[in-house]
């Protein structure tokens, strides 16, 4: 069955069985292995991608189900060599240990800041409550998202410097 997806801004087409999960289409057909398979039972959020900007679990979607939609994976966050504010936040605040949950965490954080640019700590914790960090590094993940919010707020105040801030850490 035909699947058409825009992934990180690039159009892709595939011919797959209806039972193929979105996460497998992304990893196997498109070879984008930044999207992880953790629990494979809708529990952990390692497979999170953005579908039209909304974070969803790609292990619990059929590829055919989202045909025609626009997907962002972790590979789509950076602009060339320039890390996104969320990636910079995770880098600066040591927001990862083993890194397995990190793609999902960063995508959930990115979507949260789109909707709520200045979230409270509680709102951040609630937003990431569907994503499990087995290293239990939640403290720094929360700090990383707060750091990203601060970068974005600073960039919004001084629009011309936005790219430099995104690339340079924005301390």
């Amino acid at each position, binding site marked *: *069955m035909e699947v058409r997806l825009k992934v990180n801004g690039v159009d892709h087409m595939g011919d797959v*069985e*209806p*039972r*193929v*999960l979105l996460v*497998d289409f992304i990893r196997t057909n498109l070879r984008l292995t930044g999207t992880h398979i953790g629990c*494979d*039972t*809708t*529990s952990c*959020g390692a497979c*999170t991608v953005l579908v039209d900007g*909304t*974070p*969803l*679990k790609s292990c*619990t*979607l*059929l590829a*055919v*189900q989202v045909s025609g939609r626009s997907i962002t994976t972790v590979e789509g966050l950076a602009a060339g060599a320039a890390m996104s504010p969320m990636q910079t936040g995770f880098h600066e605040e040591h927001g990862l240990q083993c890194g397995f949950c990190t793609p999902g965490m960063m995508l*959930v954080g990115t979507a949260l800041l789109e909707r709520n640019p200045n979230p409270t700590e509680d709102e951040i914790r*609630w*937003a990431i*409550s*569907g*994503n499990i960090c087995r290293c239990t590094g939640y403290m720094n993940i929360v700090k990383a998202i707060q750091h990203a919010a601060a970068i974005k707020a600073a960039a919004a105040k001084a629009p011309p410097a936005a790219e430099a801030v995104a690339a340079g850490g924005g301390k």
Partner: protein
Amino acid sequence: MFPAAFDYRAPASLAEAVDILRQRGEEAKVMAGGQSLIPLLKLRFSQPALVVDIGRLHNLAGIERRDGHLHVGALTKHVDIERSTELRSLCPILPEAAHWIADPLVRNQGTVGGSVCHADPAGDWGSVMLALGADFVAHSEAGDRVIHAADFFAGPFTTALRPDEILTEIRIPVAAHSAGAYNKLERKVGDFATVAVAVQVTLDGGKIKSAGIGLTSVGDRNLKAADAEKSLAGKEPTDAAIAEAARLAAQAAEPKSDIRGSAEYKKDVVRVFVQRGLKTAITRAREGKG
């Protein structure tokens, strides 16, 4: 993990969807958001020959208020109920229950109609709809059929829907001086409820005109605590009346001992949650919320 092979259809209209079900309903599963069905397909607990994905029927999503009812489209996502500021005052039990369903990522995709049709005894919406006295609208080629919430849940993962029918809408009566509350105990975000209780109360002057009580995870389906509901009708909302209703609701619960707690413990949680829920609901109804 991946599901057993199935045919897949994504109809572009409700008419096309029910036409497919007329022909192949017996061997088909209807999928809305897929957040309950896809895990079952992956575990191969469910192996339908055909999946009918109604997720593209966008006019089945959304909430309208008319004729004294909230008309909740079957494809309305949990997240849209959770974030609705209008519902917070109009029918507070809906956003309160939505907030505790699964986790934020599942709530972004899962639908209220899909959840009630999945009919998991641990599902949250079933109990809420029982407490609210909601009506379910089932559509087939023969037209619409209205099923009361109390008649909808036939057993574990089983509803009164026929194989050729699709749930299109849930109708919830809205009245003045009526409000509800949802209390849920879960070990962690995303786990099934250990116990949850939905309560809706309508006041008339100083008295309780009617009450609805739905129980989650304490039976083979979402249970309606009918004796407890009846015990409250016409009563003043005293501590004694509330305690008696809570006792009757705990009696109606049929929990099993499992990893989440003993049957005795769960019955007592029902009692506590009915008391707590009634007190919250009565306060909200007096404040004009709901």
